[in-house]
Each structure stands twice: as C-alpha cells, then as structure tokens.
C-alpha cells in the first residue's frame, strides 16, 4: 500500500471562498464563550495573525481583519466533493471526518491509495503533475505526503516533506527529527511529553510502546503503532455515489455573475473529475442558485454530445448566465446530475479531422443554444402534406430527412396568410394550382394558388380562398 495524503490546511477558509484574497481574512469559531482564530489567509499571516489566537487579540494586532464564521458542514461538503474528484486517481479514497474540535480544524485531509494507480498514470511524477495541476486550477491550498501508512503520509504532508517513502524504515528516517507537535496528539499529552524531554518523533518512537501506553495513554501508543504500520488502521473508504449532487455554500451573498463564475469553475472541475472517475459523461446537468429571500433559480444545461470537459461546461454555463437574470444575490450553489452516458468522441480516431469537425460543430451549436435558448436553434424539414403551412416543420438539427416531392414552391413563406385587397387583375405568371386538403383535421383548405408579378418586380405567391373568394398573400418567390 502506498498512500498519498492531500492535506488541506486552509479548508475552513477555502470551503467558503474560492479567492483567498489580498485582505487579511480569518476564519473564527466560538468555544467556551471565547472567539478563536482557526485559520488565516496568507495576508493575515503577514499581519502576524496565527491560528489558535484569541480573536480579540487578533483584532488588536490587525484591526482591519475580516472575520468569517466557520462552517463545518461547508467543509464536509467540500471534502466530499474533493473525494469524488480524487476517485479518478485511485480506487480507494479515504477522507477524515471534519472534527468540530477547533484544534483539529486545520487537519482536513484525504488519502488516496496510489500504489495500484502508478502504472496507469505512467509513474508517480506524471500522476502528481496531473493531480496538482487540477488542484491548483480548483484553487485549493494543499500539501502532499506519500507514505506506507495513513498516519505516516498525513504526518509527512503536515510537515511539508514531499519525498515519497515506501517502507516504514524510510518513513522513520524522514520523520524522526520532526517535533512531536506535528503528531495529532491532544495538547495535554504533547505537553507531558515535552516535560519528559521527549521532543522529537524519533525519541518517542524509540521508547518501548507498552511503557508509552502506560505513561501517556493507550491512544498515544495506538497512534504510534498505526504510524509505523504495526497495527491495522481500518477506515471506511469513500464510495462514489451513483448520482452526483454537490453543493457549495459560501455563507455570503454573491450578486455579480462574474464573481459567481469562480465557485462555478471549481464545482465544474470537481464534477469533471467525478465523471472521469466513473469513466462516464453527461448530456445534461442542473444548477440551482439559492437566494435568501427568493425561490431558487434552476438552470438546466444541456449538450448535444455527452461531455466531461470542465472548460466546455464553464463556457456553456457562462453563456446561460449572461442571458439569465438572477432575481437576487446567490448564497449557495448546487450542482446535480442523474443521467450519465458514455462519452462521445473521446478516443483519437483514424478519421481525426472529421471528428474535430463534428466536435467543433456541436460545440458551436451548444454555445448558441445556451445563449439564445434551445428552441431558437433548429433545423428544418419538409413534411409530406399538400397544405403549404403543414408541409414544413422545425426539426432537430442534422436529423434524418424524409424525401417528399413537391411542385414548384416559393423560397419564402409567410407565417400567416396575409389578406390582400385586389384593385386590378394581377399579372399572373403561373397558376392556378388548386389545393384542397385537410378535411380530416380542423385545418381544411380550399385554395387556388397563383404566382403573380407585383408592380415592383417581385413575385408573390397568392391564393384565392374558394370558400369566401378573398385573396391572400402566402409567400415570396425570392
């Protein structure tokens, strides 16, 4: 087993913001009637703010600091979205529970078993490159650690040691000089160890385990066993859901469409990761924008080909958003998809150019349909019916056409016949062509059609209704 641990030290902040910002921002939580800083963005750290600082102290140090309340549910949701995304790299993904304990708030992490995936991805370097590139594009701050045990990988990630270790001995060599504060022991035990002179992980590991258990509690010994792979570390693996449903609760209102694109971009990338993990694609997914006062806005994004490309999703969503008026600022986003189909045109083909051609075409049409509305973009078809108004219909683009044979017809048809006032006999070019049809449905017609020359040189298609003898204009012979 080779575990890759992705540690997300800024998750309390990043679960609520996609842009960690230039202004000093901290995430705070209240415990025992005091408000504590649990997570700082880089700007806050530059202002000498630290996690575990009392918020009153933080305010004194940096009066212009922006506080955000911690939302463990949002962190859990973000971690689950990431787990679904990470499934593309490994078939066993483990995520640690988001703990309500403030001291554990920065230890959000997920583990991927990558030993079995290395060959598929062409080696560790390629796998990491791919993974890191995606994490960066989703705007998460992360640290990676690779080790033979879960705790070992997590410890390396927390300590920022990026060298992969594959055996417990190699792990021991890497971690022995680390301070024991890097272990996830409770603070009292850490203090006890310090007073006993045990300052580094190496020193602690050299002590007999049963003595450690006696003096510092079985929990400590158990952690050491699990760290070195001497005891089993059973955890429940993350299971990929059959349907995708993700939510992003930012905890504040976003009113501009441009700003909404940042969380959307992250969500769509995570979604694309999920689709890759399942080796599937979608033709349709739903976005729900929640507002505080108004009922939520739903957008259904459809594509003509099954897709799993995040950039493409984003282009379509952007087009739709530009056209959609949201009634109120958005405070939460939801993305869901229930129907999946196998991806179209993903394998490079012998007929590659033709493939690109159709892809290019469908993407253009999808983009136009997303902006103008799906019913504004269509094909046409001829229908075998004698009545002109019934002899055509809109059709799905690129659909199969029935071969119907018609007599000579004008290129332009009026949506409705227009009544004409005949002041003189028109110059008839051809006609009459009698059309009597449609008695079986309500649209019965009895007409004599003529092609006539109008005075200005244009040719009109007119008919006389045989029932009331009135003349109508029905088309132009363009």
């Amino acid at each position, binding site marked *: 087993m080779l575990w890759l641990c992705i540690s997300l030290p800024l998750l309390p902040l990043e679960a609520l913001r996609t842009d960690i910002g230039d202004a000093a921002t901290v995430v705070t939580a209240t415990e025992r009637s005091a408000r504590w800083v649990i997570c700082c963005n880089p700007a806050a750290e530059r202002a000498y703010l630290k996690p575990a600082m009392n918020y009153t102290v933080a305010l004194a140090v940096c009066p212009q600091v922006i506080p955000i309340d911690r939302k463990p549910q949002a962190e859990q949701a973000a971690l689950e979205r990431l787990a679904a995304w990470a499934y593309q790299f490994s078939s066993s993904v483990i995520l640690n529970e988001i703990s309500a304990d403030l001291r554990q708030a920065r230890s959000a992490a997920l583990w991927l078993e990558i030993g079995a995936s290395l060959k598929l991805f062409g080696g560790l370097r390629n796998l990491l490159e791919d993974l890191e590139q995606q994490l960066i594009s989703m705007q998460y701050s992360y640290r990676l650690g690779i080790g033979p045990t879960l705790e070992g990988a997590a410890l390396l990630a927390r300590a920022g040691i990026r060298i992969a270790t594959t055996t417990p001995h190699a792990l021991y060599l890497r971690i022995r000089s680390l301070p024991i504060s890097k272990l996830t022991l409770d603070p009292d035990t850490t203090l006890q160890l310090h007073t006993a002179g045990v300052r580094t992980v190496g020193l602690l590991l050299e002590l007999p385990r049963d003595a450690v258990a006696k003096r510092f509690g079985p929990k400590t010994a158990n952690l050491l066993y699990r760290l070195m792979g001497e005891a089993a570390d059973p955890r429940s693996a993350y299971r990929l859901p059959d349907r995708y449903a993700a939510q992003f609760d930012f905890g504040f209102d976003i009113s501009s469409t441009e700003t909404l694109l940042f969380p959307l971009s992250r969500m769509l990338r995570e979604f694309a990761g999920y689709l890759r993990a399942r080796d599937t694609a979608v033709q349709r997914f739903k976005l729900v924008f929640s507002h505080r006062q108004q009922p939520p806005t739903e957008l259904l994004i459809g594509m003509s080909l099954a897709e799993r490309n995040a950039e493409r999703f984003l282009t379509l969503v952007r087009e739709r958003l530009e056209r959609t008026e949201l009634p109120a600022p958005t405070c939460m986003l939801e993305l869901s998809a229930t129907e999946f189909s196998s991806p179209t045109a993903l394998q490079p083909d012998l007929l590659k150019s033709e493939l690109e*051609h159709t892809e*290019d*075409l469908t993407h*253009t*049409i999808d*983009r*136009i349909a997303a*902006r*103008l509305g799906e019913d*504004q*973009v*269509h*094909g*046409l*078809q*001829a229908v075998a019916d004698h009545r*002109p108004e019934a*002899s*055509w219909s*809109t059709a799905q*683009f690129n*659909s*199969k*056409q029935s071969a*119907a044979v*018609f*007599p*000579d*017809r004008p*290129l*332009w*048809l*009026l*949506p409705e016949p*227009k009544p*004409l*006032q005949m*002041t*003189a*006999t*028109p*110059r*008839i*070019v*051809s*006609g009459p062509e009698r059309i009597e049809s449609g008695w079986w449905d309500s649209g019965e017609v009895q007409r004599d059609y003529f*092609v*006539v*020359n*109008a*005075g*200005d*040189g*244009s*040719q*009109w298609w007119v008919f006389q209704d045989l029932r009331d003898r009135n003349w109508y204009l029905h*088309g*132009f*012979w*363009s």
Partner: protein
Amino acid sequence: MTRTVTLEQLARLCRTGSESLRAPDVEISGSPALDAALPGGGWLVGSMVEMMPNTMGIGELQLLMPTLARISQGERYVAFISPPLIPFPPALSQQGLRLSHLLVIRAEKPADVLWACEQTLRCKSFGAVVSWPTTIKDREVRRLQLAAEAGRSIGFLYRPIDAALEASPAATRLRLLSTQDGSLRVEILKCRGGRAGVTVDCTRLRDSVGLSDTSSTATHSAVLAACS
C-alpha cells in the same frame, strides 16, 4: 514574356495586395454572368458579401441557392440567422439544398444576431452563413469579415437598399434590383480584387424552369395592396 508576367503580377499586387500567383478560393455562384464579373470566378471564400435588394421577392435568395445547395451537399453546413420569414423547406430541398445540413438560428436582439453570425462564421463546419440583421454598423461588419476569414466560410449579409449609400468593409457589395422583364439585376458596388461598377442581369431560375404558362399572363400591371 517575362514582362507580361511581371505586369500581371503587378496588377494582382495592386488589386489584392498579395503577390501570390495562386488564385483565391471561390465558390461559384451558379450564374455564369455573375461568375464572370466576380474576381476569381465566384464568391470569395473567407469573406463577407453584402446584398442589398430593393424589395423582397425579387430573387434575392434565389441568387444564392446554387451555392448554398452545393455547400450543403458537401461536408459543410449552411446557417440562416434571423430570416425575416419562413425559409420554406419544400422549396429549399427542391433547389437542391440538403435540409439536414441547414441550421436556422432565430435571434431577436441585434447583438445576439451579430454574435450568432460571428460564432457560426468562425466555426469551420459552416461553409456559408446567411443573415438578416436589422441593424449593423460598419465596425461590426469588419468583425464578421475577420470571423469569416478565420473560419474560411462565406458570410452573406442582407441589408436594406439604403445601406448601399454607406461605406462598408465587406469584401463584396451587391445592389439587387428587379428589371421590367422580371429578371434580377446585380450591381457590383464593390468587390475586392475585381472591378466595381459592373451590372449583371441574372435570369430567374423559375422562369427558365418554364413551369408557367405565359398564355394566361394578363396585360394589366398588377396593383396589389397588402392590408394588414
């Protein structure tokens, strides 16, 4: 010999601004008289063509039908953007247009029409884009011209006849008028790489088809008034 070649090259340089001897890609219009008048012998691929008919129904769409039919029979597609009426499918297929290769886009706002034109022109899958914008500025025509160059397609733009008085960056500009005998007169107001000011009379296809029985033609000139 070398002198004539040099002269020809110089003439081409003056006309097109490029020295290459390669003839530009064209789609023939299907009307021999018009092809002869247009540089290269047809519609220039990768350019905008402005058509300014004096009224509807004089054969302004008919003029394009041979070209559109040929494009749609091939691999590429044809787009109609905001046509003013219904392009009648029975007639279109009669004229040889493959309906499965025709896309109709209905946009209402001028900005949307323009955007849809640009998107389709840029897309390499569309061989021809025919559009009927309500208003368009010359700066916007230039954008479409660039899009057509990028997508190597032909953009046909129908504009009101008054637009003939304004300048436009379109490569080809045609004023369409009907003559007394019902044929279509094409006045070439501008064409890149060719001579402007040429007038071509195109016979209307439906007259040459000969479906009409001219015996019934009345001598009166028609006075028709449409009342809404």
